[in-house]
C-alpha cells in the first residue's frame, strides 16, 4: 500500500520486497512452532487434566458404541447400512472432529475473552495473522484422543468390512479428514465472527454444535429436507458421511466424496471472509 500516514512515524516501514514475502510464511511458521512448544510446556504442568480428558472421551466413545450395538442388536441394518459401515463412518467422523478440537478451543470463548475482555487489541498489535494467533495460542489436547480413538475404530471397522482401499484410498484419507475439519472450522469461525457484530448473547454455537452428533449417521436416514439442509446449508453431512462413503458407500458415492475438499475449502473460505470483515469492524472496548 502506498498511503503515507500524516502523523509521526513510530514504526520503521517494513520492506515489501519479494524476498521478504517469500520468507514471511517461514517466519510465521516458526512463530507458531514456538507457540505450540510454549503451549505443550504449560500443558505438561497439568498432566492430570489430560488423563481426565482422555477418560471422558473414552466414556463418550464407549457409550456411543454401546448405543450403536444396542440398536444393531435389534436390526440387521439401518436403511441398508450395516453395523460395520455405520461404525466406520462413526470412527472416521472422530478424525476431523479431533483436528477441529485441537485448534478450536479459543473460538468458543472468543467473545468473552477477546472482545469483552479486550484481549483482541493485543492480538492486532502483532504483525502476524490474527486468526492464526487465536487458533494457535491454545490447543484442545482432547482432540488427540479423538484422533487416536477414531483411527482405531476406523481401522477396526475397515478390517471387519474387508476394505482394501489401495494406495489412493490411504493417500485420500488425510486429505478427506483435513477437508472435513475445514468444514467444522469454517462453520464455527463464521459463527464466532458474528460476535463482531453482536455480543454473543444469543449463543448460536450450542444448537449448531449439537447437530454434530447426528451427522455421524448415514444422511440417508434423514428426511429429504434435513438431508438438503445438512448438505448445503449447515454442511455437516460433509464432516463424516460423504467423505467416509468413499470407502464404504460403493461406487455411487465416490464422486460425492471427492467433492469434500471443495466443500471444505468453500466453507472455510466463507467463514474466513466473514471473520476478516468482522475484524475490520472491530472497535476496542478500551479496557
Amino acid at each position, binding site marked *: 500500500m502506498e498511503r503515507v500516514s500524516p502523523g509521526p512515524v513510530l514504526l520503521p516501514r517494513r520492506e515489501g520486497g519479494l524476498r521478504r514475502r517469500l520468507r514471511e510464511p517461514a517466519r510465521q511458521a516458526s512463530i507458531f512452532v514456538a507457540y505450540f512448544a510454549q503451549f505443550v510446556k504449560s500443558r505438561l504442568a497439568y498432566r*492430570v487434566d489430560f488423563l*481426565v480428558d482422555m477418560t471422558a472421551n473414552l*466414556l463418550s466413545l464407549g457409550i456411543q458404541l454401546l448405543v450403536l450395538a*444396542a440398536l444393531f442388536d435389534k436390526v440387521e441394518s439401518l436403511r441398508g447400512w450395516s453395523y460395520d459401515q455405520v461404525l466406520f463412518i462413526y470412527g472416521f467422523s472422530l478424525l476431523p472432529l479431533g483436528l477441529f478440537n485441537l485448534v478450536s478451543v479459543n473460538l468458543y470463548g472468543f467473545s468473552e475473552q477477546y472482545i469483552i475482555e479486550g484481549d483482541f487489541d493485543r492480538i492486532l498489535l502483532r504483525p502476524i495473522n490474527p486468526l492464526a494467533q487465536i487458533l494457535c495460542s491454545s490447543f484442545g489436547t482432547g482432540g488427540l484422543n479423538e484422533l487416536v480413538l477414531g483411527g482405531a475404530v476406523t481401522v477396526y471397522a475397515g478390517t471387519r468390512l474387508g476394505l482394501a482401499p489401495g494406495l489412493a484410498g490411504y493417500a485420500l484419507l488425510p486429505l478427506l479428514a483435513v477437508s472435513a475439519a475445514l468444514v467444522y472450522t469454517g462453520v464455527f469461525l463464521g459463527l464466532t465472527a458474528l460476535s463482531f457484530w453482536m455480543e454473543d*448473547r444469543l449463543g448460536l454455537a450450542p444448537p449448531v454444535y449439537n447437530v454434530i452428533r447426528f451427522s455421524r449417521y448415514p444422511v440417508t436416514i434423514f428426511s429429504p429436507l434435513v438431508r438438503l439442509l445438512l448438505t448445503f446449508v449447515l454442511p455437516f453431512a460433509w464432516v463424516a458421511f460423504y467423505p467416509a462413503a468413499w470407502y464404504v458407500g460403493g461406487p455411487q458415492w465416490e464422486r460425492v466424496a471427492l467433492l469434500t475438499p471443495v466443500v471444505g475449502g468453500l466453507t472455510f473460505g466463507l467463514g474466513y471472509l466473514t471473520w476478516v470483515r468482522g475484524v475490520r469492524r472491530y472497535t476496542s472496548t478500551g479496557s
Partner: protein
Amino acid sequence: MNGATAPALPRWRRGPAATAGLYLRFMRLAFLKMLAYRLRYYTGVVTYTIFVAGNYFLFTAVYASRPEGAEAARLGGLTLSQMIAYVIVSWVGRSFTFNNIDRTLSWQVSKGEIAVQLIKPLHVQTMMLSEALGEAAFRFLLFTLPILVVVIPLFGLAPPPHPALYGWTLLSFLLALVVNAQINFLVGCLAFHLKNVSGVVRAKMIMMEFLTGVLVPFTFFPDWVQVAVAWLPFQAVSYVPVMIYLGQRPGASLAGALLLQAAWALGLFVLGRWSWNRSVRHVTLQGG
C-alpha cells in the same frame, strides 16, 4: 482459637416459617434471574428440537429396518409411536430437570467464592435446591412448554394410555428434578477434594445421558444391564417418569415407581448433607 476471648457466634435459630420464607426467596430470585437471561433460551428451544429430531429420524430408521415378523412391530417392548413419545418426553423432560448445580458449586469452590456462602446462616445445599426449583419454574413456563409447542406439531406425540398419567408424569418429573439436583450437588462437592473437577463434570454429563435412559430405553439392552441400572439412582431422573407417561407402570407399580424416586431424592439429600459437612471441614481458601 481461644474460646474464652472470642465471643461465641450466636447459633442461628429460626422458626420453620422463617426458614421456609428464606428459601422461598432464593427460589423467587433464581426465577427472576433466569427471566433476565431469557433470550438465551430461544436458541435452547432450537437445540432441544435438534435432539428430538435427530433421535426421531434415527429410531424411525431403526423401526423401518426391523425384520419382518409377528413381534416385529415392537422393539424393546415399544411400538414406533411409543418410541417417538419416549424420545420426546425424555428430552422435553430433560429441559425441565436439567440444572447446573455441579458446575456452579465446583466453580465457586475452586475460585474460593464459596467462602461468601459459608458465612451465611443457611444450608448451602438447601439454598441450591431452592434455586434449582426456582429455575425449574422458569424453565417449565418459558422453555419446556415452548419446546413442546414446537416439537408436537413436527413429530406428533401420542397421548398416554390414561389421562391421569399426565399428572403422574408431572409429579414424577418433579421428583426427578430433585434427584438430579442432589446428584449434581454431590458431584459439585467433589471440587473440595479434586483440583480439576471440570473433566469430572463433563464425564458425569456423558454418563448421565446414558444411565438416565435418555439416549436409548434400557429395554433395548440385555437383561443384566436392566437389572444393573435398576439399582442406580439415575433411572429416577428420566427413565421412570417417561415409562410412567407411556403407561408401562400401571397400578401398584406406579406408586412403587414414585416411592422409589422419593426414596432416592431423600437418600441422596441426606448423603449430600453428610458429604457437605465432611468437605467443608477440610476446605482451605486462598485469600484473594
